[in-house]
C-alpha cells in the first residue's frame, strides 16, 4: 500500500518520550522563588490590613463609650482633662487650617515654578534646577519643624507681637515649602507631556510664550496638575513633625492662624509619647483620630486618581 511506502520512506519515529521529564530538583528553585516573591508582596498588604484592622478594632471600642455623632460634630477636644469632651472638629480644624495654609503657599509657587521649568527655562537650567528643587523633598521633616519654630516664627513675631510662639501660620508656611517640590515636579511632568504640536499650533496663531503657557499648556495638563495639588494636600494633612513642633498642642476650633492649635497628627504624637495608660478611653482616642485621618487621606488619594482618569485628555 501507498501508506506503507510513505512511512517506509521516513526515518523511524523515536522511541519513548521526545522531551526529558523535568525532575523535582529542577522545579524546586522555581517554586522557592515564586513563594518568596508572594511572601514579600504579602508583607506590605498584610501590614496595611493589620493597621486598618487595629484602627477599626480600637475605634469600635472607643465608639462604644463615646457617641460617634458627638465625636464628629463636637468642637471641644479635652480627653486628657477631667471634664472630658470628644469633639474632634477642634483637631480637624487645626489640620485643615495648617493644610490649607500650606496649599496657599505651595499652589501658586509650585504652579509658577512648574510653568517656568516646563516652558521658559532653557534645557541646561531645567536639568540643574529640577533636582535642586527635589532636594527640598529629601530634607527630614524634623528639620523643617525646627526651621519653622526657630527661624520663621521669630521672623513673624518681629512683624507682629500678637503672634503666639506656637502658631499655625509658621507651620503652614514651612509645610508649604516642604510640599512645593511635589507640586512643581508633578505639575511640570504633566505640562511637559503636553504634545509639542499643541504649542506649535498656538505659536502659529500668534501667541506669546505666556499665552501658550496659560491658555494651552496649563489647561491641557490640568488633570495632572490637579492630581498633583490633591496629592500634595493629602501629604499636608498627614504631615506630623512640623505641626507637632511648631503649631502647638492646644486643640482650638478656630480659623485664626496666629494662635496655637493642634492637628490630628500632633495629637496622636502627644498621646502616644505621653504617659496615658494603654487600654484606657483616653488612649483609644488616638485610634479614632487616626482612623478619621486615614479616611481623609485615603479619600483624597482616591479623588486624585479619579481626577486623573476622568479629566485626562486624549491628545491625538
Amino acid at each position, binding site marked *: 500500500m501507498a501508506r506503507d511506502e510513505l512511512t517506509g520512506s521516513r526515518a523511524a519515529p523515536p522511541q519513548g518520550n521526545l522531551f526529558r521529564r523535568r525532575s523535582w530538583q529542577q522545579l524546586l528553585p522555581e517554586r522557592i522563588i515564586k513563594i518568596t516573591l508572594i511572601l514579600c508582596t504579602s508583607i506590605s498588604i498584610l501590614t496595611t490590613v493589620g493597621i486598618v484592622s487595629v484602627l477599626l478594632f480600637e475605634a469600635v471600642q472607643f465608639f462604644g463609650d463615646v457617641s460617634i455623632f458627638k465625636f464628629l460634630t463636637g468642637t471641644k477636644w479635652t480627653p486628657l482633662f477631667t471634664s472630658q469632651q470628644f469633639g474632634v472638629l477642634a483637631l480637624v480644624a487645626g489640620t485643615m487650617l495648617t493644610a490649607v495654609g500650606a496649599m496657599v503657599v505651595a499652589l501658586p509657587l509650585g504652579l509658577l515654578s512648574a510653568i517656568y521649568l516646563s516652558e521658559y527655562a*532653557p534645557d541646561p537650567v531645567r536639568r540643574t534646577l529640577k533636582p535642586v528643587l527635589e532636594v527640598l523633598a529629601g530634607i527630614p521633616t524634623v528639620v523643617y519643624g525646627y526651621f519653622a519654630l526657630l527661624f520663621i516664627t521669630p521672623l513673624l513675631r518681629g512683624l507682629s507681637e500678637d503672634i503666639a510662639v506656637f502658631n499655625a501660620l509658621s507651620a503652614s508656611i514651612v509645610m508649604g515649602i516642604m510640599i512645593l517640590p511635589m507640586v512643581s515636579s508633578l505639575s511640570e511632568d504633566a505640562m511637559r507631556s503636553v*504634545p509639542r*504640536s*499643541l*504649542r*506649535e*499650533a*498656538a*505659536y*502659529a*496663531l*500668534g*501667541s*506669546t510664550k505666556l*499665552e501658550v503657557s496659560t*491658555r*494651552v499648556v496649563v*489647561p*491641557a495638563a490640568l488633570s495632572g496638575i490637579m492630581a498633583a495639588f490633591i496629592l500634595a494636600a493629602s501629604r499636608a494633612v498627614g504631615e506630623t513633625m512640623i505641626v507637632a513642633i511648631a503649631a502647638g498642642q492646644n486643640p482650638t476650633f478656630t480659623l485664626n492662624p496666629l494662635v496655637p492649635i493642634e492637628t490630628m497628627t500632633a495629637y496622636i504624637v502627644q498621646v502616644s509619647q505621653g504617659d496615658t495608660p494603654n487600654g484606657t478611653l483616653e488612649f483609644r482616642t488616638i485610634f479614632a483620630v487616626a482612623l478619621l485621618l486615614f479616611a481623609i487621606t485615603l479619600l483624597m488619594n482616591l479623588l486624585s486618581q479619579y481626577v486623573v482618569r476622568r479629566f485626562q*485628555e*486624549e*491628545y*491625538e
Partner: protein
Amino acid sequence: MQVADPILQTKNLNVYYADKRVVTDVTLDIVRNRITAIIGPSGCGKSTLLRCFNRMNDLIPTARISGQVLFEGQDLYAPSVDPTEIRYQIGMVFQRPNPFPKSVFDNVAFGPRINGFKGNIDELVEQSLHRAALWDEVKDRLNSSALALSGGQQQRLCIARALAVQPRVILMDEPCSALDPIATLAIEELMRELSEEYSIVIVTHNMQQAARVSHFTAFLMADDTRIGHVVEYGESRQIFTNPQDERTEAYITGRFG
C-alpha cells in the same frame, strides 16, 4: 523665475541648525493668491524652508538663518519685527491635525481672542468654519470637544482656526499626510477655493497632490553633504510635464525619493 509683485520672497536664504547648514542659497518668489508647492525627497529641508516664512524655526534654540525673507517687501527677520505679529498674517497648518483639547468653537476662537478681536466672535467663527467647508458638519456640535471629530474634520478645523485670524498667507506642512484619500480630496478642493483669497504654500511628499492642486512648484533636493537647495522652480504644469533639470525628471518619474 521672475515674478511681478510677489507676496513672499527669499533671497540667498541659508538655514543652520547649530553649525550645520541644512538649506542653502534659496532664492524664491512666491506668487500672490496662488498655490505654491514645495516638493522633494525626505530630509531635503522642505519643512525647514516653510518654517522660515512665519519664523517658526525661532522655536528651535539653535536655528538661525542668513540671507533675507521678505513679506510684502518687508524683512521678516529685521530686529524690530515681532514674530507673533508675523504669525497673525501668515498662518500655518501642520502635518498632523493638532486641535486644542477644547471645544470646536474655542479652537476657532482661540486666535482672534488672543489677538484682542473686538467684533462679533460668533460670526467670525461661523464664517471661518464655512470657509473651511466644515460648518455643516459641526454646526450642531460647536460646544463638543474638537478631539471627537474625525481626522479629516480635525484638519479642516485647524484650517478654520488658521483662517479665523484673517491671515494673508497660509503655510501648509504636509497637511494631508495623516489623512485618508477622501479626506485628502476634501482638503485639496478646499485649497483651490481658498487660493482665490489667500496665498498658499504647501509642502508635500505627494507629487500627484502637488500636480493636482498647485500653480507653481519648487523642487528641493539635498546634495551629497545633506544640504538642501532648490533644483528647479516654475509653473507646475511645466515642472511635471517638461522639467528642465534631469534630477527633477528623475524625481517626478519616481526614479528616486
